């Protein structure tokens, strides 16, 4: 059971226990025991405290300590909400979908425990619209079962605690994964980010105190409550405790989700889990956090996959969506793909992001179509410099590191495309201006 690094799965328990998506099977394997324990033996604050002590950090990207976030919820304002981020739209990320499909009850139990901890009586799971079949065929069934067994609804397990859990689907927009945009979307608005402060903990859904956590984050909660924080800390590092699901994609032999202790080296993920690179080729670049990543080179293969070490290596762990480029991949093409993604997904609210991604796509196209000059490579750098720190939300900011590091690591490939005559007038090429207006 488990794998070579963990003796039992903490999150992907369906890989150890067949049919754990069925409530009977889940219950026969410790399922809903954490909830029973919490309702019988623990005050809400105790639940928050054990999650704080576990050091669990948010798995949606930013790595903020979950228990600390719950602690920000004001006590005396009602109602309060828990909103689960199941938007999972970062290219290269496909872990939440596996949890919701095969181990939905552990997520549901985590949500109930979170509501109990912060005093919320309503929770929503917000999924990307494309997850309609996942919700309909898997999650909805599990939620209905949980209601039938008295884990949801009025007076849960005979206690004073009552809550409702609802499912809500978005409709195709990456930006709705950003927590404030998600709340706008759930309120029936366009999914555009709001300025912070106020933070959702104080003024979130319907302007009420709201906890927003990622699916994987909350799936950690039942085992933490049941087994305690020391047990949880047997895996991972001091600052990045626990296990994490790594979504591995790109040029490896065995792409897929792998649950490993935080702090495992990248090389292990690629070679032991992923079976190495296709045709035995060499690694060229690694995007550890999907399209938003700063790319790192093969010299960083021994970096350990935890929040601190990845930051020290000049990138970030983010949602741990490792996209692997090998030596056969055209680096400029790969950077252009990601820039096109962000142009497509820019919500248009702020001009540095809307215009910046527009210009980047045009300059990339010009380079790749063989009309590029040296000035165009510089232009790419100028555009990202102008975007950096100037966009309303992080979406625009996410564009910068990928382009920056792609040029830094693979400058020769960019320069090889700068084949056209230097333009005599400085600034953007005429054909670009033409397409702009």
């Amino acid at each position, binding site marked *: 059971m488990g794998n070579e690094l963990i003796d039992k799965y903490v999150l992907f328990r369906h890989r150890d226990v067949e049919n754990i998506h069925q409530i009977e099977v889940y219950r026969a394997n410790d399922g809903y025991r954490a909830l029973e324990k919490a309702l019988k033996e623990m005050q809400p604050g105790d639940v928050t405290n054990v999650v704080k002590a576990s050091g669990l950090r948010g798995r949606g990207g930013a790595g903020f300590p979950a228990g600390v976030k719950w602690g920000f919820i004001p006590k005396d304002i009602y109602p309060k909400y828990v909103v689960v981020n199941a938007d999972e739209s970062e290219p290269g990320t*496909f872990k939440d979908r596996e949890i919701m499909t095969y181990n939905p009850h552990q997520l549901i139990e985590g949500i109930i425990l979170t509501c109990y901890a912060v005093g919320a009586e309503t929770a929503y799971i917000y999924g990307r619209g494309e997850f309609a*079949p996942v919700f309909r065929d898997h999650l909805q069934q599990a939620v209905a079962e949980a209601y039938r067994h008295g884990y949801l609804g009025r007076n849960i397990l005979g206690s004073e605690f009552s809550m409702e859990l609802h499912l809500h689907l978005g*409709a195709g927009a990456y930006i709705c994964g950003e927590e404030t945009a998600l709340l706008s979307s759930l309120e*029936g608005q366009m999914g555009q980010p709001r300025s912070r402060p106020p933070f959702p903990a104080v003024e979130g859904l319907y302007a009420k105190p709201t906890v927003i956590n990622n699916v994987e984050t909350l799936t950690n909660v039942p085992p933490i409550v049941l087994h305690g924080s020391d047990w949880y800390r047997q895996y991972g590092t001091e600052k990045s405790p626990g296990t994490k699901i790594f*979504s591995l994609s790109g040029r490896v032999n065995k*792409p897929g989700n792998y649950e490993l202790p935080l702090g495992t080296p990248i090389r292990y993920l690629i070679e032991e889990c992923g079976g190495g690179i296709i045709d035995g080729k060499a690694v060229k670049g690694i995007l550890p956090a999907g399209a938003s990543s700063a790319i790192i080179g093969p010299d960083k293969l021994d970096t350990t996959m935890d929040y601190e070490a990845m930051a020290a290596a000049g990138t970030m762990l983010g949602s741990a969506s490792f996209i692997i480029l090998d030596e056969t991949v055209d680096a400029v093409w790969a950077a252009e793909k990601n820039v096109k993604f962000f142009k497509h997904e820019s919500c248009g609210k702020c001009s540095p992001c809307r215009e910046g991604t527009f210009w980047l796509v045009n300059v990339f196209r010009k380079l790749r179509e063989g009309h590029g000059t040296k000035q165009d490579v510089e232009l790419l750098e100028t555009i990202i410099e102008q975007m950096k720190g100037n966009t309303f939300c992080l979406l625009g900011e996410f564009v910068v590191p990928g382009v920056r590091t792609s040029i830094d690591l693979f400058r020769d490939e960019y320069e090889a495309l700068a084949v056209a005559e230097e333009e005599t007038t400085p600034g953007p090429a005429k054909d670009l201006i033409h397409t702009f207006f």
Partner: protein
Amino acid sequence: MAWTEKEQQELDKILKKYPPDRKLSAVLPALYLAQREKNWLDNDDIQAVADALDIPVTHVHSIIGFYTLFRKEPTGKYMVQVCTDLPCALRGAEDFYRRFCERMGLPPTGGTTEDGLFTVESVVCLAACDKAPMCQINLEYFESLTDDKIDQIIASFREQAKIQQ
């Protein structure tokens, strides 16, 4: 027109999920209901949603414009959305998509087949990157595709459409 008693009843059920003064929260679910029958939204459908939720029709239009899963133009009975985003493209999804479009008699960028059955388009990541090439057809997942496999799937949808006629 797609908004009937049935849709209204379903919407009433959906509205129970949100606080009574927050009907607007049901705008996406309501649009899904309105779009269900013919896969796109005409002006009557849009007006029906605005009326059912008691909101300005301009707001419904801006919502439709913002989210990619709603369409104001007629599309095929089956929306075939092939992911060609970076992780999938690293496993051959772009060439797979080009070949698929060609066999469907469509330009390399996709489009709607002459019989109006299929609208084919390339889309960004669908959270199935380890099973590339992949697509969704009316949002159902089809993964680890080959040319043969997708042709068979298309053929079975053609059959299904024939039976339904």
